[in-house]
């Protein structure tokens, strides 16, 4: 049974046992606008929560993507190599960015549920 949570940096993270799949939220892709390039992270790299792991370039700006949780990068979404625009089209599903083998499952509890994230978006607008 997988569970999905959200970070304040507008990443989503879905956990299935000790594997986390991470991407950016629909809100994030909307504010970035046309995405032209995703610089994917390196497989095998150990990362800690809030590390910058990769970069998304849109026509408007370059944006760092952070990992919300510690772990080892075990897979990246190669589809994004040729088609960064997929992040605009399907950010929370087929345009996942990387997968982590997580080392600190308790960190997942610190992240927001969908309803908490929606509240957070409202508070950011103010």
């Amino acid at each position, binding site marked *: 049974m997988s569970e999905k949570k959200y970070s304040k940096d507008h990443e989503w993270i879905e956990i299935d046992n000790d594997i986390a799949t991470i991407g950016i939220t629909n809100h994030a892709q909307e504010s970035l*606008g*046309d995405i*032209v*390039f995703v*610089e994917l992270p390196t497989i095998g790299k150990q990362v800690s929560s809030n590390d910058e792991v990769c*970069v998304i*370039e849109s*026509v*408007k700006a*370059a944006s760092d993507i952070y990992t919300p949780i510690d772990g080892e990068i075990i897979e990246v979404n190669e589809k994004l190599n040729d088609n960064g625009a997929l992040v*605009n089209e399907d950010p929370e599903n087929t345009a996942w960015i990387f997968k982590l083998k997580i080392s600190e499952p308790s960190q997942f509890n610190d992240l927001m549920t969908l309803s908490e994230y929606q509240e957070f978006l409202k508070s950011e607008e103010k």
Partner: protein
Amino acid sequence: MPINYQKGILNEHLQVRESAGLFDVSHMGQILIPVDEKNIISLSKFIPLDFDKINFNRCYYSFLLNNNGGIIDDLIISKIQYKQKDFFYIVYNASRKKNDEEIFINHLNNYILLTNNSLIAIQGPNSEKIINFINESKNLFFMQTKTSNFLNKEIIISRTGYTGEDGFEISVPNDVSNQFIEILLKNSLIKLCGLGARDSLRIEAGLSLYGNELNEKITPIEANLTWSLHKSRLNDESLNGSKILTNQLNGKIKNLKVGLKSISRTMLRSNTKIYNIDKNQIGYISSGTFSPILGSSIGIGYINKSEINNKIYILIRNNWEELNIVSLPFIQNRYKRGG
């Protein structure tokens, strides 16, 4: 005008290249200056054009120059008959209104700031079809202008623009501008486009933007815009910076304006430093964007002339990335010339 509407910058960019886009550029400055001897003398101090040779209903790309020949602003000037009187009509940058208008206020007589006129740009290969309800549009070629009427109000229609495409820019009194835009948007060939697409289109077309390629420390010659100067004026000491411009024309320019293309898929961004193979800075990127036509990031920059045949690099996130130098424009323009 927003950065983009619903469908995004790249979609709007392609809309203009393939059909037509409507840009509301009413934020730009517009002024009418009566054609008289004193105004011509004043304009001749700042604008490097020979006013004796300016024809009616023709548009000229030019500049306001400072004492050093640096660019205070770039502009389009034409001579038109408006409400039965002869005027110079100048369209200038929104970002430079304060500087430009200070010059106009201090040096010109009886000018009219067209603050009650909107400026609507229609750009793209289908522009001609979309604007054909304005009769005068049919008799215009690129860089020509005429006054016409819309709902009994006088409008100024010019076959100009800043995207590299055929197109028109129309100055319409505010009280009829909504009706004007509504008629245009009823045509399914045209869609609203924003500032983002305006920028990526002008970069592809190799056109300079004030604040990026142009500023008070760069002369038109240094910006590779020598073609736009009326050379006879360079010997005229009454023109600001004429001596400096003459020296530059006869001598050497240190930097060249070049087109830049990303080899990897890194996005080129303005104000990025450019280096040679020895990691010495030799220039900078003045504009950068993504070209949906070429499928890669492109830009415009200035580099030291002596490095023009060498490899050049930018430092992006601690990686040295080579850039290609290419000639401008990236996309051939499709202006309707003639007449």
